[in-house]
């Protein structure tokens, strides 16, 4: 089977093109021995099935980074290259193209984002470009699917060029001459979106726009999340699932080990889905009714912000502040992702250049950035007592984020590199792609969170029935009660936070904590040990000693901050 490689700069719509070419069945794999992942799928070329690989985005074939080394290695294993080029920035894309044409491999060029060239006044002489490069060059719009058919049909025409290898400066000179001959840019007319673009990276107007974007995001997330809980999922659960549970409880005789594991504690004819703590009651209610709505709303809003192209602008605005923390502005992106789930956030720290930055960013995310699941529970349980308590949780975590960053930056060897990013133009997001991305992320949550939640509740019930928690509770009482001011039974929740933070916070519900205690418990849960999934990626990304360091910092700072809150609240 032929191997087709999709090669191009980052952010040229390579992945969108990939999903256009392959349809549905794709897999994400890691390149052996590395952390760089790539996607693989299948497509039909001239009636034959071919494998297609989405190679990590790269600007050059000079192996200066891990992604580039892998791209280079994959080239040796491929049969045909589809070089995805940003038609609105031909000049920059052509460097990689020229390097590809020096290889002994057939190349087809996809001039992607072609639609944007029209409204940006960029004219490209296709025929001349094809003549100069000597390979097929097909205009495409991956987002809408335009040109994909032509692209596929042109693949059999591709032949290896094997141009003689030239130096860097010679390549740039050649690019300059090609651009001169094929590209013409109209005199610029300032459109509204361009004015808005400039305004969002200026200090004053930028800050105002950021405030508007972030505040409205927050309210939209709450509005959708809350709405789904109160008007859809909670009524649905109470009307349809509660009777089933009551019936099951009757069948199981209203008590006993099996009853408590499956249905949990029931008092009378009412079932409290938060407190009963059975696998089929709380085990489904917590993830599906309390957490899922916020996952949906968070990722919907995040997807829109991503696709509009706002996040790089936020990175520019936040750059100065992020430098205090030993990071640069781009680190705001993993941080925002962490508000959804810490796992992809820590994976996303790979966009940062140095190990030092990755350590700081990962540690800060796992300490001070609460995931959506935990936040949903904070809103559900702490929010009952009033918004000011929720604000206390967020305020504390924000202060910890800043202070911890300053401390890490101070004490870790090294310096923080400089921000250097392209700011893409604003684009109108396509609802279809936003929803697709949201669905992928929700599916990830359902597939990973629910088994762990069910398992956690099972373990908790078994340990309860073995009376295993009393000993631990007495042993840890000096810390849990003495330092944190929580009832000694709360230790079970703090320990189980290792499995899932949402379930852990849910375990506190039956303890009838005072609002102040709930604030402390939420903060300690957020800051202390990462959940098991985060733990695994931290191990993968930071290595064993890095993980040990990060975990030590977490436990120490969680107890310190919890203790301080206990004193001052």
């Amino acid at each position, binding site marked *: 089977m032929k191997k087709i490689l999709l090669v191009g700069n980052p952010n040229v719509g390579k992945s969108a093109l990939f999903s256009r070419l392959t349809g549905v069945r794709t897999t994400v794999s890691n390149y052996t021995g590395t952390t760089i992942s790539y996607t693989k799928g299948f497509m039909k070329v001239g009636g034959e099935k071919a494998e297609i690989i989405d190679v990590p985005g790269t600007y050059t074939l000079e192996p200066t980074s891990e992604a580039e080394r892998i791209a280079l290695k994959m080239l040796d294993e491929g049969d045909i290259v589809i070089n995805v080029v940003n038609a609105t920035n031909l000049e920059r894309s052509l460097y990689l193209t020229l390097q590809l044409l020096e290889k002994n491999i057939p190349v087809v060029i996809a001039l992607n984002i072609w639609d944007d060239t029209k409204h940006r006044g960029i004219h490209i002489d296709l025929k001349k470009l094809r003549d100069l490069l000597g390979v097929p060059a097909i205009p495409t719009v991956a987002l809408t699917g335009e040109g994909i058919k032509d692209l596929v049909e042109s693949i059999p025409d591709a032949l290896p060029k094997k141009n003689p290898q030239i130096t860097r400066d010679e390549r740039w000179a050649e690019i300059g001459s090609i651009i001169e001959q094929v590209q013409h840019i109209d005199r610029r007319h300032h459109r509204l979106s361009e004015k808005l673009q400039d305004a969002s990276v200026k200090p004053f107007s930028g800050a105002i726009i950021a405030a508007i974007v972030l505040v409205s995001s927050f309210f939209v997330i709450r509005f959708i999340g809350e709405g789904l809980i109160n008007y859809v999922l909670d009524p649905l659960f109470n009307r349809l699932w509660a009777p089933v549970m009551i019936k099951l409880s009757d069948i199981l005789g209203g008590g006993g080990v099996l009853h408590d594991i499956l249905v949990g504690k029931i008092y009378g004819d009412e079932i409290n889905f938060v407190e009963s703590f059975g696998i089929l009651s709380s085990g489904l209610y917590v993830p599906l009714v309390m957490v899922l709505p916020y996952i949906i709303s968070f990722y919907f809003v995040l997807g829109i912000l991503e696709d509009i192209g706002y996040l790089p602008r936020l990175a520019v605005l936040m750059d*100065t502040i992020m430098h205090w923390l030993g990071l640069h502005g781009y680190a705001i992106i993993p941080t925002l992702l962490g508000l959804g789930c810490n796992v992809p956030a820590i994976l996303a720290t790979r966009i940062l250049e140095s190990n030092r930055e990755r350590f700081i960013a990962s540690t800060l995310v796992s300490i001070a950035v609460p995931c959506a699941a935990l936040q949903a529970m904070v809103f559900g349980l702490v929010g009952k007592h009033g918004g000011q308590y929720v604000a206390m949780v967020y305020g504390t975590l924000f202060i910890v984020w800043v202070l911890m960053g300053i401390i890490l930056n101070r004490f870790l060897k090294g310096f923080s590199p400089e921000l250097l990013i392209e700011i893409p133009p604003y684009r109108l997001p396509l609802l279809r792609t936003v929803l697709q991305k949201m669905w992928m992320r929700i599916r990830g949550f359902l597939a990973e969170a629910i088994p762990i939640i069910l398992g956690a509740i099972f373990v908790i019930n078994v340990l309860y029935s073995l009376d295993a928690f009393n000993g631990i509770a007495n042993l840890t009482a000096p810390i849990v009660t003495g330092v944190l001011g929580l009832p000694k039974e709360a230790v079970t929740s703090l320990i189980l936070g290792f499995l899932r933070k949402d379930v852990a916070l849910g375990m506190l519900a039956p303890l009838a904590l005072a609002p102040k205690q709930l604030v402390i418990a939420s903060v300690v849960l957020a800051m202390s040990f990462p959940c098991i999934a985060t733990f695994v990626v931290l191990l993968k990304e930071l290595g064993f000693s890095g993980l040990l360091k990060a975990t030590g910092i977490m436990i120490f700072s969680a107890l310190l901050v919890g203790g301080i809150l206990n004193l001052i609240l």
Partner: protein
Amino acid sequence: MGNNGLMSLTQMRSGQHGIVVDIQGGFGMTDRLNALGVRTGKKISKVSSMVGRGPVTIELDRVQIAIGFNMAKRIFVEMDRL
């Protein structure tokens, strides 16, 4: 025009135009800038800079690039005559 019109990106004011004449950085920095299209000989204009040693945003070939302060101050531009 001579050296009178030579300025670093951080010294330029927003809205000013010019041609990149010198990038005073190691290979790593120059390579990264080149990859994004920032090379000597390129026409650029400054869009903005953030307060407090924040990044400079420039525009070239209709693309905006944000460059951290300490990198931007090592990129020199010959200003267009007014």
